[in-house]
């Protein structure tokens, strides 16, 4: 064997090049264009709303968010107006909050049932039903809510008010229980159950088997195991799923429009038949709006756009992190 002396020349790594196939390049190009086009459309929508609403933002300033009055009158061709979205923002939070309070526990219980208790056949059947529910057009929920749910909900609302009326949120200034935020929240809750259930099921099913076994080996019942292992593991995912549901609930238009008495009054009483949300308010005003008001409605659209964007972005972030890390 000949001895090898240390080499004096410095070696730099070779460039490794793989010539992509033409079909690959075309396919990649198409994908690039498509993914960029959705981003471009999103940006276009956002900037369109921003530009059209700009005049309102300028004249109203912070009042557009914090104000509670929404008027425009035309006198001798001169339009005087004041636009405050405050009551609609409160309404949006109130009914989506109601939807979450009702929808999240139901979804989590459904997900636990499907993952840990349901026999195979029932599980498959229920998952199909939930997927169907997610795909239903919201007008169907609106119609069902109006004709079937509302009369029932009115009865429940009266019961709630009778026994829990001492809590400010459950009190009413007058006995007007129809078309309340409570009813709208109920309809929304049913609409967001599929998405929250599906995300929860996904994270629950990722629970590491060795932790589940550890709990059982310590004499845990199934429910105790779920409480100590599955729920702590999946809590991040449930929060993310709830945020996705919130994103849908905030933007819901038609179903809310049908079951809610939309009015510009800052109502925090969930059983009282007055409320609103930004999306359905835009629909309800659009047809008869004056020039200035239509600009204000576009500005409101921009606010809704930003809210939805932020909530969905956060939701995706939380869900991804929960599924990947698993704590």
């Amino acid at each position, binding site marked *: 064997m000949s001895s090898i002396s240390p080499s004096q020349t410095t070696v730099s790594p070779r460039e490794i090049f793989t010539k992509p196939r033409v079909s690959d390049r075309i396919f990649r190009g198409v994908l690039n264009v498509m993914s960029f086009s959705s981003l471009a459309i999103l940006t276009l929508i956002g900037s369109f709303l921003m530009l059209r609403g700009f005049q309102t933002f300028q004249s109203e300033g912070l009042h557009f968010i914090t104000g509670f009055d929404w008027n425009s009158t035309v006198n001798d061709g001169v339009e005087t107006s004041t636009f405050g979205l405050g009551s609609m923002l409160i309404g949006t939070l109130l009914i989506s909050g109601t939807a979450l309070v009702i929808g999240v526990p139901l979804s989590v219980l459904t997900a636990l049932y499907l993952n840990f208790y349901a026999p195979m056949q029932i599980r498959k059947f229920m998952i199909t039903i939930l997927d169907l529910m997610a795909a239903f057009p919201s007008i169907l929920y609106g119609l069902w809510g109006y004709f079937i749910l509302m009369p029932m909900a009115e009865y429940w609302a009266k019961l709630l008010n009778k026994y829990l009326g001492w809590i400010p949120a459950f009190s009413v200034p007058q006995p007007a229980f129809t078309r309340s935020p409570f009813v709208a929240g109920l309809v929304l809750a049913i609409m967001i159950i599929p998405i929250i259930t599906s995300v929860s099921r996904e994270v629950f099913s990722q629970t590491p088997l060795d932790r589940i076994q550890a709990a059982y*080996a310590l004499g845990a019942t199934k429910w105790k195991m779920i409480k100590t292992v599955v729920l702590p593991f999946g809590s991040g995912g449930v929060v993310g799923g709830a945020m996705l549901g919130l994103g849908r609930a905030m933007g819901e238009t038609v179903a809310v429009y049908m079951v809610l008495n939309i009015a510009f009054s800052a109502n925090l009483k969930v059983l009282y038949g007055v409320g609103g949300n930004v999306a359905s308010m835009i629909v309800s005003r659009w047809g008869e709006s004056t020039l200035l008001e239509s600009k204000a409605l576009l500005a409101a659209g921009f606010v809704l756009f930003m809210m939805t964007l932020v909530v969905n972005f956060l939701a995706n972030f939380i869900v991804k992190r929960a599924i990947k890390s698993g704590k």
Partner: protein
Amino acid sequence: MSDEMKDGENMSTANVTGSKALSDVAANRMKDRMPGTTPIGTGLEARNIHAWFSKHLAVEDVSLDFNAGTVTALIGPSGCGKSTFIRTINRMHEFIPGAAMAGEVLLNGEDVYARGVDVTKIRLKIGMVFQKPNPFPSMTIGENVLSGLKLAQLKVANKDDLMEDCLERAGLWSEVKDRLGAHAGGLSGGQQQRLCIARSLAVNPKVLLMDEPCSALDPGSTLRIEETIHELSKTMTIIIVTHNMQQAARVSDYTAFFLSDGGPGKLIEVGPTSEIFSRPRDQRTENYVSGRFG
């Protein structure tokens, strides 16, 4: 304590190949402790155990007696049904969809598979330590030790004493006593495994099943766990699956050799550990313990 340390050193230097050396190690161990003489703990009998995964028979007709206060090692090549067998003992086998079993497991003379037996109570009496350390990561070290009480809804008079006692017996107390409130994920693999042992001790089991508890650990941690097993065997019955023949020789009173010839796993032979390593009756055992296969 100093005695133990010497023991430990013996163990690490006993790392010699060949069944002759192994039988010496085992004989050495037997001198200070005759099997079956410890009155504490609970006897366990497995009778004609069969275990299936769907249609696949994985364990066929295994009968083994485990005397109170003894350590029994289960050895054999992988896939011969050792894990499946011990998982039938504390009824963990039935969690696998399609799993089935036949035979009886008698704890203090009572069949753990009998109708009307509360399976969660069985698992309290027969604890288990797994191959991969699996502490609950969302809990602190202290909470992990006591987690069994919460899971099984047991009450104890003094939780702090129990926690210290369990950690002490698992040989972990001195290392974690200043950070009981820290999360368990920060411990080393060996410490996590001893934490899992402490956790299973807290519900006061009579029998402890250990499925290759050291296979994911470094030699130092392995030694610590073996010392722990030695201590625990004074108060309970232990069944340990191991791939490591030295370990079987060091920790066990009895050794059972399992083998599968492509079909279901079967018990080939069982006896005092020193005999299994010095003069096994079956040629296949001889081949295995002398390292000729597996």
